[in-house]
């Protein structure tokens, strides 16, 4: 296991006082809190900071940690010394259940089975219920639309028999109901941390997000698609094939349609008790004028149409 330099993690000097440490923690907590932060590794950074603070804010734990002294540096291989924790009065106690997300390094020094973890009176011990976990999972729009069984891979912290924590890959097969949308959660009862002393295991909350899709954008239950149309389709009206998540449908483009005009296919969005709609945004695409025939047609339009696309810009010229 690697040695962790809690002072380095918190960005404080080894002789920082309690106030400095608290200030550093609050600042880092705001920066990396997974609910607030958009940094890619916010969750891991936040846990690391919480772990460092758990030790440095507590005078006894900090003193014990300091006793390891400067013999180690961050990342160095580490085993707790055999006399670890001797000569300390354990009047304070760490709240047990929370340490399951912390590192092996922390668990071996301060975890439930360490001299620190064993201290504390009745009622101070780890909570009987296992901790809840959250995980974000990405699903494709097609899978979310159809629903069905998804295989997901998670990195889960697990308590080993000797009280340390190991991160293990875990594969779950989970049923997704048709029409799950972004931000929704799925609660898997009993799939969180196991309980410490015969209580109920925690729950696992899966938060849904969508993998980016080349055609469709989703907001809530509504789906948006940009649909290219030819100028004559827009001008004369046409019936065109439009892809939707449920398969292609025929849609009528009204005569005189404009670029960026939004048409609605009712109920063709994500399914649900109130299904979403699909919005089709028209994009008029010009045929290239790169053949004699195309050039002749453009020349004819120029001559015969008396069309000024800038008519609305005012007559300043």
């Amino acid at each position, binding site marked *: 296991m690697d040695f962790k330099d809690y002072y380095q993690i918190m960005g404080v000097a080894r002789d920082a006082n309690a106030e400095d440490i608290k200030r550093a923690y*609050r600042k880092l*907590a*705001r920066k990396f*809190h*997974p*609910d*607030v932060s958009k940094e890619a590794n916010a969750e891991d950074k*936040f846990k690391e900071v*919480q772990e460092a603070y758990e030790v440095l804010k507590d005078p006894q734990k900090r003193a014990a940690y300091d006793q390891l002294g400067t013999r180690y540096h961050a990342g160095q291989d580490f085993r707790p010394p055999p006399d670890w924790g001797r000569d300390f009065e354990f009047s304070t106690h760490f709240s047990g259940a929370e340490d399951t997300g912390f590192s092996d390094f922390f668990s071996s020094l301060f975890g439930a089975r360490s001299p620190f973890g064993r201290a504390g009176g009745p009622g101070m011990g780890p909570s009987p*219920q296992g901790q*809840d976990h959250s995980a974000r999972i990405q699903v494709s729009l097609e899978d979310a639309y159809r629903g069905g*069984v998804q*295989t997901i891979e998670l990195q889960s912290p697990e308590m080993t028999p000797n009280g340390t924590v190991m991160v293990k890959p*875990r*594969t*779950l*097969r*989970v*049923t997704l*109901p048709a029409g*799950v949308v*972004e*931000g*929704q*959660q*799925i*609660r*898997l*009862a009993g*799939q969180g941390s196991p309980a410490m002393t015969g209580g109920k295991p925690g*729950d696992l*909350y*899966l938060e849904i997000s969508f993998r980016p899709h080349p055609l469709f*954008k989703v*907001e809530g239950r509504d789906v*948006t698609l*940009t649909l290219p149309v030819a100028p004559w389709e827009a001008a004369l009206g046409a019936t065109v094939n439009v892809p939707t998540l449920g398969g292609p449908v025929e849609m009528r483009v009204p005569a005189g349609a404009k670029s960026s005009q939004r048409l609605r296919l009712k109920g063709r969005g994500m399914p649900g*008790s109130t299904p979403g709609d699909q919005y089709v*945004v028209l*994009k008029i695409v010009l045929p290239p004028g790169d053949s004699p025939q195309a050039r002749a047609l453009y020349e004819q339009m120029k001559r015969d149409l008396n069309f000024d696309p800038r008519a609305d810009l005012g007559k300043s010229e």
Partner: protein
Amino acid sequence: MNLRDVIHGEVIDHELRLGIGEVAARAHVQDTFIIELVDYGVLEPFGGNRTEWQFSGTDLHRLRRIVRLMRELDVNVGGAAVILDLLEERQRMRNHLDLLEALLNK
């Protein structure tokens, strides 16, 4: 776990309904804290008096985030409620911005 076992979860969305005891248990808090959050307008249960309150999955999601914010950022209920509102507003704006950018770039 056998890989052939399929787990059926419970969808936490606006259609889910939970009583005050259930929603409190899911977030590991006391009923009194739920009542406080209703007073702050953070949770908006259906039903008239407390015994009839029904909370949605959206309420549970908000509740779990509030608990995390309070515990981990050391803010009080009022502060956490404001943070939550702003985070939700930010999320809506991000989604909308994503959509507009996608339309512009097509």
